[in-house]
């Protein structure tokens, strides 16, 4: 990637074609629907190409397709707000290996009738490019309004070239990346930064009536190998937390059998091993701690810990189950909480959760957010 290539892309993608909002919704929904068909070639390519850079298993990629494109319905896309003074040229910086936010963000850029320069993530160069290619077959004019490019973040000159002339900048990433792009963005451009976040779940004492709660909880914790910002680190349980942990463990194993965890980096595997070792040693002589884990390579771990304080997980399907005490300490995480899953879906827990997070949803729906 060079500055000239970015400038050529900008020159090529300059004017948004005439489209009504409903026509854009229709094109995007139609494209998304095609991805959901089992024989779809884009889907097949993603399942073949994405495991490498994302680190997810092919089955996880298939699950990601179902979640990401399943969410792009006519109804959901129709609800994306379009401001009256929407920007005409957007530069988007995507991050991480979870495809949903980036695909949703590209859809929003098109619904705003903007020309989009998208810097995709090193962790997922596959989905944004394939999505735009698949859109081309449905509406080439729309596809022409998205240039998907990649360059290393250290190449700040290229980032500056991509930012030049943007009247909106959308950045996903950690606080440092967001600050760095913000510093380089043109002053008049609107800036939207989406930082990394944590999520957790609350299980009330009446949750027994909630369907197959362990399976729903295991789904929320296992999808994207727990690396998404909507992936719960902790399940806080109001009644018997240890008993819930004991039922969550086989549910984690069942999900693993269907959708295996991806390959971990050495640092990730080592971190998970140390957490597991620590709690396993404690659990041997401390009744307030218990550990369940799968056979090597330990694809999931459930840790019951009677200490009610929030514990950030090392991720990759290592989930904590703790008693639900006062959540006052969660105030320390204000602004860093994405989603709180609750079960049962009643007013009491929803109001507790609503004070802590921007999004509250039933357990089992944590990985199914609105499009943007």
């Amino acid at each position, binding site marked *: 990637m060079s500055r000239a290539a970015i400038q050529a892309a900008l020159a090529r993608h300059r004017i948004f074609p005439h489209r009504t909002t409903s026509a854009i919704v229709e094109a995007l929904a139609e494209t998304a629907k095609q991805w959901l068909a089992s024989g779809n070639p884009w889907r097949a390519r993603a399942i073949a190409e994405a495991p490498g850079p994302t680190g997810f298993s092919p089955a996880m990629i298939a699950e990601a397709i179902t979640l990401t494109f399943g969410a792009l319905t006519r109804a959901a896309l129709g609800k994306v707000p379009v401001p009256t003074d929407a920007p005409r040229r957007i530069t988007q910086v995507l991050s991480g290996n979870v495809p949903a936010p980036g695909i949703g963000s590209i859809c929003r850029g098109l619904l705003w009738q903007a020309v989009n320069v998208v810097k995709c993530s090193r962790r997922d160069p596959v989905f944004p490019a394939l999505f735009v290619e698949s859109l081309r077959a449905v509406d080439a004019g729309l596809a022409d309004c998205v240039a998907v490019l990649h360059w290393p973040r250290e190449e700040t000159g290229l980032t500056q070239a991509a930012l030049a002339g943007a009247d909106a900048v959308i950045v996903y990433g950690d606080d440092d990346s967001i600050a760095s792009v913000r510093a380089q963005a043109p002053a008049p451009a609107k800036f939207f930064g989406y930082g990394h976040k944590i999520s957790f779940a609350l299980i009330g004492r009446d949750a027994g009536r909630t369907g197959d709660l362990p399976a729903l909880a295991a789904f929320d914790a296992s999808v994207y190998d727990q690396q998404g910002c909507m992936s719960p680190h902790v399940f806080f349980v109001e009644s018997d937390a240890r008993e819930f942990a004991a039922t969550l463990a086989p549910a984690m194993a069942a999900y693993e059998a269907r959708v295996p965890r991806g390959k971990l980096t050495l640092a990730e595997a080592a971190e998970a091993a140390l957490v597991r070792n620590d709690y*396993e*040693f404690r659990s041997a002589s401390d009744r307030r701690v218990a550990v369940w884990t799968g056979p090597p390579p330990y694809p999931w771990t459930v840790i019951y810990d009677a200490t009610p304080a929030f514990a*950030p997980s090392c991720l990759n399907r290592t989930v904590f189950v703790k008693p639900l005490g006062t959540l006052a300490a969660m105030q320390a995480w204000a602004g860093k909480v994405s989603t709180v899953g609750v079960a049962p879906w009643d007013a009491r827990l929803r109001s507790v959760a609503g004070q802590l997070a921007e999004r509250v949803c039933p357990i089992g729906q944590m990985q199914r957010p609105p499009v943007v």
Partner: protein
Amino acid sequence: MFAFQYRHNPAYRAFCDRRRAPVTRWEEIPAVPTSAFKEFAVASFPIATSVAEFHTSGTTTAKAGKHYFKTLDLYDAASQRNFAGHLLVGQAARTLINDKAATAEDRRAAGPTNLPVLALTPAPVIAPHSSLAHMLAVVAGQDREFFVEHDTLLLERLTQRLCEMQWSSQPVMLLGTAFAFVHLFDHLATMHFDLPAGSRAMETGGFKGRSREVTKPELYRLFTQQLGIPADHIVNEYGMTELSTQFYDVTMRIGRQSDHKDVPPWARVLIIDPATGEPAPVGARGLIRVVDLANLWSALCVQTEDLGMAHADGTFEVLGRVAGAEVRGCSLNAESLRKQ
């Protein structure tokens, strides 16, 4: 020793029993995670009778790990011999080191060397829970001085002493943490010494946020540039509160700078593949696990939180602490939250 510790340490016994795996070879001895030293008394004797307890500095959590000793005889013997073999090369080590009749007390009193020692740590008397301060006191001869008081490195006094050593053509041995040396180099700024030939340094530990981070080549360049100690006279020590044995770069033994570390005969280092929990092949990275026969009173097999690699010649290399696995998705993880 495993049977002894299994019998006398209830927490360890419970941990071994939980695994339900028989121990038939030394490689199968269950490893005590260093984190256990924070939560439990990892000791095979009543800790009320301890003669010493060393504490970790609590780099990752507020709670300190504690290592209790019924006696320090093994600790001191292991420390002296190993230090002498890696730092006193080319020095006439006092014969007491190899004198089997000498008691630990004799050795401690004599010290292994005549090289004056400047230690960039507190003296053991003011830091009784620092394993490093104790170890340096044990390996240094009687001509030694400690340059940390009230958590402060006594830079003026240390600089003055370096001047004296240079003017009197007296080779000297500098021992300390890497971050203390960085503070010294920052203090010296453009000033530089040319310490007499034979001078040497031992540096240990990471930076733990206590000074600016400096790579090992850069640190060694500063040693040479500001003190006149060549890279083949600088030795990295790998040790930890939870162990009784230290590991040193082979540098002075082979006469050139090396990152490979020797394993003394009374210890074994296993590199564990975290995905399987089994030993990794030579050349593969994994978690460092140490079997340390000098850890008689605590845990002979300790699972560290460091990554390393074994070499075919029996040495190993330390590749740093497990921390900061890169976040691949959009969630914050434990490490990224710690940094905030």
